[in-house]
């Protein structure tokens, strides 16, 4: 019955254009259904199901819920549902809302399809559903820069997808099967390179990071939350899922770690220089994808566990932060940090939520990201120098988070002091509050979703 998790949002996406004003509620309910449906599938061992698709070519419609896909699918369903809830107010005045929700539903279904598929061509199919629907979300409902940004995004993503296809076909030629099975192992390292390329483009690892800041910051806040909180994990997920098939990745690990650390530092330095909250979080995402890759570079052990957990903790945190940025835009009409200030007194609840997200992102204990980041650092000890640099970057993260949140919420700003701020509606508050609770809970007790 795993397919119902995907089918319900897809059917809702087809119906959404006919639902007019009710599309938002439809999207929310469909995604909530997926969340509640996947929740009890807690995998003591991997759940699989399979049906023939095109048997002539050996394709099957097969899904798997296991330690890796369960938490991530759950997060996708949750954050997407919250993004739909948040959009009901945030996107209220925008055109073509039914289409917006249709794209949002397809985007969520695409990502859940990626995490659940255990047939490689099905994986590729959902991968492109995810890319295509997010392309339209960015280009249609983004800000004035979105149209150019979305084209750049599309071309990078197409390159990534075709590299993925190349890898998939190579694996098929070597094994004669499209099954994405963890049991398979021992293919030569050469076949891993297209996957590495594809997933590094997707992760926005330096030097393929160029598309990310533009795309994330141009999208509307709930979509940015899905991009920065959910889609950012897809590259890491792909690496974890596919790398098991290949032998001898260890020879590459130090190079992977090197590029990861370059990305961490570069993203963090760029984040320090941004004057827009959404661009800040976008560059911070570049930096954080580096951590995901750095944990992967440890290849097994605690580092890999760290990456699997970081996908969830960072995902929830970054989604929260993008939603907070959206709330600031909603209330104050801008997200330029230099024009903002004094918001702590004017909107205290949002300020508290922002600091929960910010402190979590900075890796402060008791907040979610800390729980996974220390594991990544522990796994990274096999590259001591790089590990030290990565830890140094954690300081940079703390710096850019605190400096900017201080400017936005605490620094006194006369115009903002007297400006007429719009009240943030309860649906937006609820969406952010749920994420904040998730961040706090994971910070204290992450073990339920650590299944490895």
């Amino acid at each position, binding site marked *: 019955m795993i397919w119902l998790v995907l089918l319900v949002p897809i059917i809702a996406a087809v119906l959404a254009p006919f639902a007019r004003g009710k599309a938002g509620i439809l999207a929310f309910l469909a995604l909530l259904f997926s969340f509640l449906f996947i929740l009890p599938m807690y995998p003591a061992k991997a759940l699989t199901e399979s049906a023939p*698709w*095109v*048997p*002539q*070519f050996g394709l099957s419609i097969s899904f798997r819920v296991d330690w890796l896909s369960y938490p991530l699918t759950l997060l996708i369903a949750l954050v997407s549902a919250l993004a739909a809830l948040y959009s009901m107010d945030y996107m209220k005045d925008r055109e073509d809302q039914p289409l917006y929700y249709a794209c949002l539903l397809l985007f969520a279904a695409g990502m859940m399809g990626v995490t659940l598929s255990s047939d490689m*061509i099905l994986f*590729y*199919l*959902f*991968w*492109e*559903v995810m890319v*295509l629907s997010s392309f339209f979300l960015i*280009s*249609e409902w983004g800000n004035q820069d979105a*149209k150019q940004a*979305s*084209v750049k995004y*599309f*071309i990078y993503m*197409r*390159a990534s997808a*075709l590299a993925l*296809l*190349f890898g998939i*076909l*190579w694996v*098929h*030629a070597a094994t004669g099967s499209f099954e994405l099975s963890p049991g398979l192992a021992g293919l030569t390292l050469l076949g891993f390179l297209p996957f590495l390329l594809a997933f590094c483009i997707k992760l926005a690892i330096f030097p393929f990071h160029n598309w990310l800041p533009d795309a994330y910051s141009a999208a509307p806040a709930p979509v940015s939350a899905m991009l920065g909180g959910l889609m950012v994990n897809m590259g890491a997920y792909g690496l974890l899922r596919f790398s098991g098939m290949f032998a001898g990745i260890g020879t590459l690990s130090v190079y992977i770690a090197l590029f990861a650390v370059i990305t961490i530092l570069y993203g963090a330095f760029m984040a320090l220089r941004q004057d827009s909250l959404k661009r800040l979080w976008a560059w911070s995402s570049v930096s954080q994808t580096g951590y995901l890759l750095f944990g992967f570079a440890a290849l097994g052990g605690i580092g890999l566990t760290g990456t699997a957990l970081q996908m969830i903790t960072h995902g929830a945190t970054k989604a929260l932060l993008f939603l907070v940025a959206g709330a600031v835009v909603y209330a104050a009409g801008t997200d330029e940090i230099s024009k903002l200030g004094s918001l702590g007194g004017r909107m205290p609840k949002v300020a508290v939520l922002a600091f929960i997200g910010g402190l979590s992102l900075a890796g402060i204990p008791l907040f979610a990201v800390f729980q996974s980041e220390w594991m990544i650092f522990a796994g990274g000890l096999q590259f001591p120098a790089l590990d030290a640099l990565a830890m140094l970057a954690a300081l940079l993260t703390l710096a850019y988070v605190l400096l900017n949140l201080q400017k936005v919420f605490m620094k006194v700003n006369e115009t903002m002091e007297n400006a007429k701020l719009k009240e943030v509606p309860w649906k937006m508050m609820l969406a952010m509050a749920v994420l904040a609770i998730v961040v706090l809970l994971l910070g204290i007790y992450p073990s339920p979703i650590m299944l490895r």
Partner: protein
Amino acid sequence: MFDVPMGLVLIPAILAPFIARLGEKTPWRMLVLFLLLSLASVLIVALSPFVRIFYFLFLLGATLVAAYAPLDGWWRSTLFGLTVLGVLGCVSSGDLFSFYIFLELSLLSSAILVHNRNPASTKAGLNYLMTSALGSILFLFGIALYYSSTGGLLAGGGPSLIAVALLLCGLALKSALFPFHAWAPVAYDESDPQTSALLSGLLSKLGFIGILKFLPLQTNILLVLGLATALYAAVVALREMNLKKILAYSSIGHMGYVAFALSFAAGAVPAVVHMFNHLIAAVLLFLAAGIFIAATGKRRIDELQGCCRNPLGVIFIIGLLAAAGIPPLSCFFSESMILKSAFDSGSVLAGFLMIAALLISACFYIKVVYFLAVKEPKDKIVAKVSNAQWAVLIALLLFVILAGIYPEPLVRAAETVVSTIR
């Protein structure tokens, strides 16, 4: 080999003189009616599976194209019917010479369809006619050599290399493979939407019908032709701004994929599936583009800017994304399986080059999407769409989506086709 009741093949042709007598108003309705009758009879009459499947597909395409809008004047309907007759004849002909005759029939009647609109289309039509005549001469010469080397005109036997080469030149010209493609963009651009759809959807497949029926498959020359065509079309389309020419290059590129596929042992089935998928996608694209071009009188994508920001535009964009090979739309599946056949036979480099062609073509497809759908229109575009056009386009759209999600029936049909070619 002549297991086909000729009466069936001849229905559209028998129709032609009738149409001629019926005067000014009804010929088009008669044409659609007869095409529907033929379509229905394909399902009933005993035919070999190869013929039945291709008849059904081509008649389906032709019916949708014809139903889309009235063809003005009795001669247009007549020529349309004759073109379809030529296409069907090619499918069912058992020997090279009858294939040649039907090929010429479809060529001549479609050339007149292209040619009779305005001075520019006259030029394009003549260009098409002259180039194809050259191809026909090569083909005829090839037939002669084929006869002299095998002692017959049926498929099989061991034709000499030069005969195969000449036949291939003639067929590559019909399918507009590089370097025999030059006539196609001009002809597609200058003709009306229905003729473009007919040319790109149906006639471009005839070369492959000939190759499948009479020539040795799995040759390196097909591989090279296919790769060169796909890469060339993708690169040229990058710089092109004329919408219908871009669609034409897209169509040429797709014929490259088919040729590429036929050069691999396991590639024939995905190649046939791809011919199905491309037929539908090309018909959809040319018919939908025709509506915008007719509504605005403009052809360049920067002048048509923003014209796809409406329900009709959504259909067009979905068709375009299907042609770009993006899942979960139709061509993605056949393209992936074509590449699979290349990888499985060990041609990783060829597969890599084909993937490069796909990446380059993604760039020109996104260019069209950017100008037509992402950018805001400069001034309001009102496209009038009749009910028949909606019906045709929605039917095509459903096929484009379903063939990507559930391609199994198509694959089964293609397997039957491939196992009963000769």
